[in-house]
């Protein structure tokens, strides 16, 4: 299902695909920022040291077997005198290697947990079963904004993420950008991260959080400063007025039917806070926390019966009249 989103997004929204940076392969070994780079460095150090130890131990074992097979009893007894020295050397080397790895680990950890500028962009992330609530913080309340599952950040600038959980323990993990950080109910925590290259970096909940844990993904879109500011301004605005007759009817459906009880569309009477904010739904690349591409076909199936796609999620089936469904789709597609 996830691979499907990765390959599908670019095709589902051709105009967005031209403007958006490319999706980057989800991997710890392809770091895109200083924090992730230090983790990758530590990974390679560990790999190299452990591989060398493995080869040396196997070589020594092979040599010992070969020697005992070729040698006579008399020379074996002579060899016992050097055994003590060999064991001492082995223990000494092991201690030295482990100490070296400890130093490397401390170096990596210092970079991972380093702090950025105090005036950095601050993003509050709240974990829900099974989606991510995203809020861009600002000293001016009217400039704060809420969205879901898709986080935009400017490249080359440190960003602070503050975490909370609405229900159970989740874990925020975008392997190309940072290590994991748990979202524990009742405890707040924070990490810094920075992306140095533009791209769409996939993130995933990394702590089992219930039935749809695997379908709790998010995207971090790293883009230029100008693109980021443009996105921020657009997201701060209220939902635009429906442009077509059908979309206008769709808004009426949205407000009159059950949608508005759980979802917010700023600028309308919909202030529900059970599900994601849909004010700018159409600007997002995926729906259902990275489960499906955001296209009309996927949206339709999701609205009518999301339980076959992501069983157990909070959204109930919505058996709308066919005409109401078509109007609702027209409306949601205009929420850019």
């Amino acid at each position, binding site marked *: 299902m996830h691979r499907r989103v990765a390959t599908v997004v670019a095709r589902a929204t051709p105009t967005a695909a031209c403007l958006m940076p490319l999706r980057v392969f989800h991997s710890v070994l392809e770091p895109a920022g200083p924090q992730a780079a230090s983790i990758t460095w530590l990974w390679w150090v560990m790999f190299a040291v452990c591989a060398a130890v493995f080869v040396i131990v196997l070589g020594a074992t092979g040599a010992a077997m070969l020697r005992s097979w070729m040698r006579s009893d008399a020379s074996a007894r002579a060899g016992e005198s050097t055994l003590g020295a060999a064991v001492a050397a082995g223990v000494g080397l092991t201690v030295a290697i482990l100490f070296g790895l400890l130093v490397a680990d401390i170096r990596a950890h210092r970079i991972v947990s380093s702090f950025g500028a105090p005036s950095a962009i601050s993003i509050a992330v709240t974990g829900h079963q099974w989606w991510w609530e995203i809020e861009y913080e600002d000293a001016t309340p009217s400039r704060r904004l809420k969205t879901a599952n898709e986080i935009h950040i400017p490249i080359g600038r440190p960003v602070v993420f503050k975490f909370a959980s609405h229900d159970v323990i989740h874990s925020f993990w975008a392997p190309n950008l940072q290590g994991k950080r748990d979202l524990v109910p009742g405890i707040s925590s924070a990490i810094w991260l920075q992306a140095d290259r533009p791209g769409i970096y996939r993130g995933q909940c990394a702590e089992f959080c219930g039935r749809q844990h695997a379908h709790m993904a998010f995207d971090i879109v790293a883009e230029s400063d100008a693109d980021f500011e443009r996105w921020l301004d657009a997201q701060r605005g209220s939902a635009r007025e429906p442009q077509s007759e059908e979309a206008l009817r769709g808004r009426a459906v949205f407000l009159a039917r059950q949608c508005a009880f759980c979802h917010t569309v700023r600028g309308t009477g919909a202030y529900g806070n059970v599900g994601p904010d849909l004010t700018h739904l159409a600007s997002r690349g995926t729906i259902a926390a990275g489960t*499906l591409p955001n296209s*009309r076909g996927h949206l339709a*199936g999701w609205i009518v019966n999301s339980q076959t796609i992501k069983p157990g999620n909070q959204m109930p089936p919505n058996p709308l009249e*066919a005409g109401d*469904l078509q109007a609702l789709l027209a409306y949601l597609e205009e929420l850019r």
Partner: protein
Amino acid sequence: MMRRGCVICALVAVIEAGCRAGVYRDAMEATGGDPARGAAALRRYGCDTCHTIPGVQTAQANVGPPLTAIAVRTYLAGELPNNPANMQEWIRHPRAVEPRTAMPDTGVTEADGRDIAAYLYTLR
């Protein structure tokens, strides 16, 4: 005894593979599309979020009718005679065919429509 069983199994496998190849060839000839590309395309447009479609792992939904044996069904959408032209028309412009349908126009291109129809005609 054992050997005869093996021979029969192999024969069945060969015949089945031959039949499947025939089904694919027929579907390609009827539509001019490619069933393999069609299976990928119908996931891209989200057909699988509403329909159960044999052979497509993600397609286990029950919003619309299952497309099991759609190749040999008499009518499409309850009104169109089932032929390749009507199949493609229905896939690409459902609301033009039936204004009261819940099936949305998902923006299927002509080429993708041919491929999707080709895949659906392999479902016998």
